[in-house]
């Protein structure tokens, strides 16, 4: 069983996380809680480490149903992009599937891609 398939979804009333092994994650809902890092930061980190442990060449994260987030939640994606960028040759390609019509996705992920360089790919639909 892959490491990523063992990851449990966090319990957040307005947020959904579904993992489709071997290499797809989908997020939905909203993240507007006081400190998303406390609830979700660990989960994002576990997904990153699972992708490394599974030796994935690419992890796809579909955020098209994640309609609204606060800036503290955007920070989680910044952190994830940094981890991937710093993993170097041992890392994987982090591919975000986004919805161009959703403003926070349109503005944030373009910046993330410039931050993460070749480690980040963006499919904006």
């Amino acid at each position, binding site marked *: 069983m892959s490491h990523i398939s063992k990851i449990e979804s966090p319990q957040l009333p307005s947020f959904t996380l579904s993992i489709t092994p071997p290499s797809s994650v989908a997020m939905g809902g909203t993240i*507007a809680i*006081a400190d998303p890092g406390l609830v979700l930061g660990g989960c994002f980190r576990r997904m990153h480490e699972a992708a490394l442990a599974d030796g994935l060449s690419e992890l796809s994260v579909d955020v098209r149903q994640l309609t*609204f987030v*606060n*800036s*503290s939640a*955007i*920070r989680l994606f*910044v*952190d994830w*992009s*940094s981890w991937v960028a710093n993993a170097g040759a041992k890392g994987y390609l982090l591919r975000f599937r986004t919805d161009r019509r959703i*403003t*926070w996705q349109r*503005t*944030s992920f373009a*910046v*993330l891609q*410039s*931050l993460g360089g070749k480690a980040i790919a963006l499919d904006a639909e």
Partner: protein
Amino acid sequence: MISTLPSSANEPLIFLRFRPAWAYIDGVREFCRFFCQATYRQEDIAERARVVLQETLENAVKYSTPGQLSELELEVHADKDSFRISITSRPDPQHLKTLKEELSHLTRLDPEAAYVAAFYRAANEPDAPARLGLARMRFEARFELHLDEQADGRVCITATGKP
């Protein structure tokens, strides 16, 4: 429709007063967003307002000084030319100092450049607060920000955007 509204220079369309508790943020944000959408009949301004409301309310709630005098006041003024959201709060002095420095720095930069810079700072300082919210309001929501210090020690942050 817009021309029948009170002038934005005078009475606000919305005035709300509440304790600085996180529990109020979702309800206030969504009511104001819905009001904005109904007023302008445009999803764009409603979504932009939602971002501004979330970020300003979060800051106000997180950094209010405790005590009886720390209620928040939210005002929304709207007319066909501008949309203004003001939050008055009583922040702790250290946060106020940081906020003033941050605003002063931000408003010297182009909104997109400031947003990119905030991302790079967050990436390079993983243990420090991100402080993405102010830059986000300027770039993503396309609102400009202004801070007023009042005689009673309270602070009013005003975000102004064009519909």
